[in-house]
């Protein structure tokens, strides 16, 4: 009994510590990203090409930091067993639209399309925040590894034979077969490391761990040079 109470106290302390750390890390990042964006929008005045290029670098570094903060904090919570993933009925369209509206500026900068196709009224028994974090990682990756064409997020209803799923379909560089499972290991970036694309190598690992906690799997299909499909598949239907 004492041990259980001690564990609870320790978990509560860890949770508070992580929440505080997240807050302290995101607050300055809000200034970095916000003011960089204002400058890039040209609101205080026009920029020359070199200023614009350098500010783009600041922004992409800051965005990478943002994703890393969220993924590291999630991973610590998952590893310590303190992540609370209460299941609830989630409106798939509302979460997908929210995530896509947040990453739309990245698609726009790269000249890529970002489409959402979710059946009306599609719901999923999951955890809203975990679901949102998985989508941010998968759709963010899809944009990072696509240079032409675009990304589509589409929902497929379960029908008793197949499970409900959400596919993130891109027309990107694709993945060699040997890398497909490897990329779910922490800090493993495969050939992305060689061509200098974004990502810290935590997103897929954390996404699969989160998916597991809410009763879902992540599967990947890919044709190198043509694109990839990352699917979040419910185990419940």
């Amino acid at each position, binding site marked *: 009994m004492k041990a259980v109470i001690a564990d609870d106290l320790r978990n509560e302390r860890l949770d508070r510590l992580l*929440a505080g750390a*997240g*807050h*302290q890390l*995101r*607050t*300055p*990042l*809000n*200034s*970095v*990203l*916000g*003011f960089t*964006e*204002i400058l890039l*929008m040209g*609101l205080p005045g026009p920029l020359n090409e070199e200023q614009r290029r350098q500010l783009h670098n600041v922004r992409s570094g*800051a965005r990478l930091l*943002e994703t890393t903060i*969220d993924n590291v904090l999630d991973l610590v919570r998952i590893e310590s067993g303190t*992540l*609370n*993933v*209460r299941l609830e009925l989630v409106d798939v369209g*509302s979460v997908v639209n*929210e995530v896509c*509206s*947040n990453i*739309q*500026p990245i698609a726009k900068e790269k000249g890529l399309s970002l489409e959402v196709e979710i059946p009306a009224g599609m719901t999923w028994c999951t955890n*809203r*925040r975990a679901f949102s974090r998985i989508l941010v990682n998968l759709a963010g990756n899809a944009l990072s590894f696509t240079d032409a064409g675009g990304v589509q997020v589409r929902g497929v209803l379960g029908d008793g034979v197949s499970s409900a799923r959400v596919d993130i379909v891109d027309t990107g560089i694709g993945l060699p077969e040997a890398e497909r499972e490897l990329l779910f290991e922490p800090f493993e970036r495969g050939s992305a490391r060689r061509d200098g694309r974004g990502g810290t190598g935590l997103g897929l690992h954390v996404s699969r761990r989160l998916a597991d906690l809410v009763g879902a799997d992540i599967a990947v299909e890919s044709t190198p040079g043509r694109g990839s499909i990352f699917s979040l598949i419910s185990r419940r239907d």
Partner: protein
Amino acid sequence: MAQVLVVDDTDHALDLLGYLLRDRGHVALFARNGEEAVTAALKLRPDLILMDLHMPLMDGYEALAAIRGSDRAGACPILALTAFGEVGEREKAHAAGFDGFFSKPITPETFMDQLEGFLGGDDRRGAP
């Protein structure tokens, strides 16, 4: 043009949001904690309030309750804006009565579009 009360305990956040609001032709009013927010809301009756959740003296939840309980400013949309992107915070904010929930860091352009969706009647485009 709308009057928007921005409540945040960090100078940079007030500066950032003030700039964005003025750029869109709105008037930005500022408060640095919940107490100041309640006073400003009752006195100035803004069209919208953008509220940080965790602040000294009085937090966003207490300020929301005080403003909602008043006849003078109770009906205006109040949006939560927080760097606490933690599990359950969004649900807690909605349950408390916030009309919208946004996490820092914000993406200025989309954020302003969503914020303006809460101005002017039922045309709400922001997070549910």
